[in-house]
């Protein structure tokens, strides 16, 4: 952390509060001053006038970006998009990486490029970390659901075939191999066939 960065004021616009907290923490620990965290651009021009940030970091997929960019075309006090000029290869790499990670950055009063880049880098790293965290969560959740479905199907097969837990599991695994499907998919099909059929049938019978 070079000393000249400590005075740089950053404003965050992100509707993912957890991700914003991660970016905020990382920037603060690098010595930046985070001067406001918002979930949308509503009232941003007024906030910029009040908080005087040097840089605004915003989630690339926020629909508010068009609002922000229009402000900058129409209002001289509004933040302007960071333009990394293509002449410098390392910078065009940064912008590509930023777009991939979903980070966009806007500068308010002509902060020099070499001072903006490390801020964007911090945000990109946090956005990427958040993304992989969410990925892991998603995978864990899927794994849990799979296990629940397999357990349930196993119980249904045991009841229907009047067999042991081991036998039920083996016949399910064989079915999965024969069909070249995942065990969890086979489990869900079995639940549908053994349980779903029964459930759907009964109210109809009652109507008759």
């Amino acid at each position, binding site marked *: 952390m070079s000393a000249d960065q400590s005075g740089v004021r950053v404003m965050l616009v992100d509707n993912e509060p957890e991700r914003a907290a991660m970016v905020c923490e990382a920037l603060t620990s690098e010595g930046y001053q985070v001067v406001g965290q918002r979930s949308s651009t509503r009232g941003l021009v007024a906030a910029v006038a009040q908080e005087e940030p040097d840089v605004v970091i915003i989630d690339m*997929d926020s629909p508010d970006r068009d609002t922000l*960019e229009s402000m900058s075309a*129409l209002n001289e006090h509004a933040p302007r998009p960071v333009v990394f000029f293509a002449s410098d290869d390392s910078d065009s790499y940064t*912008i590509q990486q930023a*777009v991939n990670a979903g980070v*966009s950055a806007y500068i308010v009063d002509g902060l020099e490029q070499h001072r903006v880049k490390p801020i964007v880098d911090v945000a990109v790293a946090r956005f990427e970390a958040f993304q992989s965290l969410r990925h892991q969560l998603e995978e864990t959740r899927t794994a849990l659901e799979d296990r629940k479905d397999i357990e349930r199907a196993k119980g249904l097969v045991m009841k229907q075939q009047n067999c042991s837990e081991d036998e039920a599991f083996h016949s399910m695994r064989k079915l999965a191999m024969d069909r070249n499907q995942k065990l969890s998919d086979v489990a869900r099909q079995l639940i549908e066939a053994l349980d779903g059929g029964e459930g759907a049938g009964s109210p109809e019978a009652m109507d008759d």
Partner: protein
Amino acid sequence: MTDSINDAEMGDSIRLGFIPLLDAAPLIMAVEAGFFAEEGLEVSLHRQPSWASLRDRVGVGMLDGAQMLGPMALAINMGLGAPPCPVISPMVLSRNGNAITARRALYEQLAATGFDLSEPSEAARALARVVASSHEPIRLGIVYAWSSHYLQLLDWLASAGLSPGPGLELVTVPPPEMMTALAYGSVDLACVGEPWNSLMEYHGLGQILATGCQVWQNAPEKVLGVRRDWAEANPEKLRAMMRAVIRCCRWLDDPVNRELIHRILVHPNYLGSAIEPLGDQGQWLFHPRVHQHFFRQSANFPWLSQAEWLLSRMRLHTQGDQVSGVPDLGSIFRPDLYREVAESLSLDAPVMDYKDEGEHRQPFVVEGFRGQVEVASDALIAAAGRG
């Protein structure tokens, strides 16, 4: 969006971006009605949450091309608001499609002035009258500065000597929020693309006061924008893609297909359930006052005179000298490419690249390479004190 920018994974599929508006139909229906497939093309469509992210994804090559605003096709080449990216625009996707919708309360005030609101410059004069007598500023909602709707709005205001200022405040609002903004009065006039004007009328929130086509008749609204490096590396694919889109545009203009178009566009991947009411009995998908169209009267031809016109309006209506320098418009709008593709579809096209913009109050004919070609009118609203 999980696209990779790795060249090795580019595969054969063409990646195109769109914004959920009615004029995304040429790309959406070219996929859904099979026009791309008939040309042997595999195209994946990627809905974008904002014009800024569409531009950035084209800029870094995550998308090969996209539905673009006419002014955006120029801005992206000039590096306005983002690093410059060479993009070519070989055809227009749609003409007209914007309107200025007044909140009900404001519409009543405007009607009470006695001006003939069906005349756009009279409607603007009515607004000037209301602004002069109002204690509160009138708020104009716009979506994006580098767009035709914004430039049209300013030309419309200028027709009554008005411009944004203390009594007439500009507010920027994302399109899906425009309806709520109008409902709650955080904007009094909404200037936005379709289907939002139709929907605001349908929900009784406001009434269309003037349409884009009353300000600039049959202006190019959305264009096909393709990265130049992609176009140069894939000349055959580009031509096949244009053939598919041109054929789709012809199909879109046929009223027989309206129901199917609606059924596809209402899908959550495209425009979503917001447009459900536009399929109701008696409700139109394409508002009759907006005159949105895709093919007829040489709609797809990318006139260089219209690129010039757009550039001149961008220069006039933006702050300071943001729009400086003169880009080589002939390397952006590409009538030569359009002609070549039209020929391969046995369609005629104008032989010239320029026409006298603003001089035609009626449809007219120009020389084509097979015979004569019909071209739509192109009258432009006059600024106060002119014409």
